[in-house]
């Protein structure tokens, strides 16, 4: 009697050895796959990191593969000098932070209007937002440049017989385009925000109205705290893409130095000022690239928790 009970218990416990094998082999395969893919993503970074601190002579030493024999900050110093790193860093930080702030505000407000404060024609306008995402920025490149080169808001200066103002090499193009939600990929940000705002229950807002909260106050005190993941996502995207962007920066800046243009010009500069050895040039170039990315990676390490979490809860999805 007891043995029969045990066999029944056993048969309940151990489902089927084949299933166990299948499950474990899938786990092993998945682990291999995930590690492999992570390795491919990290490989270039690890490689750069290994190059940054090596001495020039290590490059020709066949016994040095990954870990340098003689640690040195020589590459870092040379790359920083040629790139004018700290000035470029300050400019980039200032522009990225400023545009991020303005874009989040302008896109968030517009998206809230499209999501909840419907007005006559807002559907059509939202369709136009999508249209702005689809048009390649290159199509607008020359007119955008000319707009800021001879800046004249809707031709007002022209009425007084004045010439347009030259705003190239100032921060005004960035301030204007981002506060008017017409900057880099702003259509996408409006889209993300709108999807998110639509997922917030209407009852929350209604409760706020009943309690005598105005519409503006409702947005800032009810919607904002409830949409933190969306804000983090957009802030991260906006900051990072502005940081890495070379399209707008090279359009609006001729003389001002920012990291993305400095690193693009680095190769030519090293050839001119430091060395002719292509291996050494490449070494300094890798150092420069890592110097551009380092602040972003450090920031990402701190933010990624919220970012990954925000994915779990969002409705980036429509």
């Amino acid at each position: 009697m007891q043995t029969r009970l045990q066999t029944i218990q056993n048969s309940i416990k151990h489902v089927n050895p084949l299933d166990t094998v299948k499950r474990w082999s899938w786990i092993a395969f998945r682990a291999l796959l995930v590690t492999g893919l992570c390795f491919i993503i990290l490989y270039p970074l690890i490689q750069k990191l290994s190059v940054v601190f090596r001495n020039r002579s290590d490059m020709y030493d066949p016994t040095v593969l990954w870990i340098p024999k003689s640690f040195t900050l020589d590459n870092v110093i040379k790359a920083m000098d040629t790139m004018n790193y700290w000035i470029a860093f300050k400019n980039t930080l200032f522009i990225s932070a400023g545009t991020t702030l303005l874009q989040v505000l302008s896109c968030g407000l517009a998206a809230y209007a499209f999501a909840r404060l419907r007005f006559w024609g807002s559907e059509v306008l939202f369709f136009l937002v999508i249209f702005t995402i689809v048009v390649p920025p290159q199509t607008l490149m020359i007119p955008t440049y000319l707009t800021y080169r001879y800046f004249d808001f809707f031709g007002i200066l022209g009425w007084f017989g004045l010439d347009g103002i030259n705003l190239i090499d100032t921060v005004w193009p960035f301030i204007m385009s981002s506060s008017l939600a017409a900057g880099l990929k702003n259509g996408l940000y409006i889209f993300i925000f709108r999807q998110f705002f639509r997922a917030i229950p209407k009852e929350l807002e209604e409760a706020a109205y009943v309690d005598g909260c105005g519409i503006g106050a409702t947005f800032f005190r009810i919607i904002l705290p409830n949409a933190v993941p969306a804000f983090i996502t957009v802030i991260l995207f906006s900051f990072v893409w502005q940081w890495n962007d070379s399209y707008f920066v090279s359009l609006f800046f001729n003389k001002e130095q920012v990291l993305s243009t400095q690193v693009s010009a680095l190769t030519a500069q090293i050839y001119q000022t430091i060395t002719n050895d292509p291996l050494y040039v490449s070494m300094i170039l890798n150092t420069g690239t890592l110097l551009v990315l380092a602040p972003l990676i450090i920031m990402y390490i701190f933010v990624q928790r919220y970012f990954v979490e925000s994915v779990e809860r969002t409705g980036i999805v429509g």
Partner: protein
Amino acid sequence: MLKKNLSLEQRKAWYGVLFAAPWMIGFAFLFLIPLFQSFRFSISTLKLATGGFITEYEGLANFKTLLFTHPTFNRTLVEAVSKMLVNVPIIIIFSLFAAVLLNQKFKGRTLARAIFFLPVIIASSAIAGLDSNNFIANVMQSASGAAEEGGNFLQSFELEKMLLDSGMAKGFVFYLTGAVDRIYEIISSSGVQILIFLAALQSISPSLYESAKMEGATGYEIFWKITFPMMTPLILTNTIYSVIDSFNNNSMSGLISKTAFAQFEFGHSAAMSWIYFLIISLLLLIIGWIISKRVFYYD
């Protein structure tokens, strides 16, 4: 500005206009007018003059030059578009696969996710351009012995031989091995897509999976009967995003910028960007039409 006797609905509408006003001004001033100007430039020659610029109407001359006499335009255009057409399906399949993988429960999932989204941060036009011909990286690969068969690191010479020997169609094998060879490029351009798919996977109601399991569906069936149909709207979104994202950093946009700011052929550059834009919109329409016929909407 807002009077007290408006109803809440009306007040909301007015606030809506107010909130969207910056975007509307920006749209008119920094999008619509430039778009119109760009079209005007494409059918004229543009000359810079003191305090402004002059345009002379040329008709379709710019377009004719580009299509029939320009040395590199046709080739670059075909290259850019065909590269996009080759890459987009791989990106979509890979990012869907990666999202399904990252959605499962395993140890170190948070870390794996953080690493998979890293390309969103580090893959940018400026950096990617520099990395594509990284001299030192190649030297290090050959030094570390990764290139034993004379091929490159992460290359699929053996795989290609094996697949060809097993009698698969040549075109398909080269497509596949090409994808494996460009795995870094593919991964680094699918960060946002993985993000979107992952968010969508999490929004699928677990009760669907539960009932499917009760009925005895296998994992394979669950994927094709539940996960995949629920993902189709996002496949559309992601395909469109990938197509648009491919403009950011390709040879075509490089040629457009070079023509404008190195050769000062503003008319040609504008015409190029219009041809490019029209082709892309046509492709988007076709792709959107094909996919949206198969899209399944739950509600």
